[in-house]
């Protein structure tokens, strides 16, 4: 799954650690999601959407895998 987490984070000038704190996950999790190595659960995707004040599909995009 592709995602725009890194772009959204950069737009706000946040570090991975700051985003991890805001989403109540580890920095390793944010790093893995940004690199596309790990797909978040639905609750985490919802939390991300709420944090960035947008829809889930504005952050995560199904790449057909």
């Amino acid at each position, binding site marked *: 799954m592709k995602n725009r987490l890194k772009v959204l984070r950069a737009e706000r000038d946040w570090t991975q650690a700051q985003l991890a704190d805001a989403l109540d996950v*580890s920095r*390793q*999790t944010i790093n*893995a999601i940004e690199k596309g190595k790990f797909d978040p659960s639905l609750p985490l995707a919802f939390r991300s959407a709420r944090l960035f004040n947008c829809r889930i599909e504005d952050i995560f995009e199904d790449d057909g895998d």
Partner: protein
Amino acid sequence: MAHDTRSRVSRNLHDTRRLAVWTLAWLVTLALVAFGPVLLWDKNPLITGALIVLNLGIGSGMIIANIRFVAGLDDLQRQIQLEAMGIALGVGLIVGLSYSMLDITDLVAWNAEISHLVFVQGFTYLGAVLLASRRYQ
């Protein structure tokens, strides 16, 4: 769902400590059951039986503490634990049965002890956690 206001790191630390305490208590009662009958209470069956029951009870507490530990992890950490536990379970089953067959068919000179299986599962689990953690970096 109740929201825990403590930080994730603080919650993880608390869950890890609780699991460590239960595991230590379980190990102590296990050691008492293993060595106590000969070294401490001259094979008194009542004391041995009571300690086996206590060991089972504390073991149950350890399982619950482990469930809470895993439930308190975040998405990725839980995925890593799931993969590691799955690998450890599979390796334990396959290697354990093959090892047992070696003993039954007298292809090895020593007895296949359950403690050997615990070592194999423990080291497999640790290795799998390290490998999975590296893979997701």
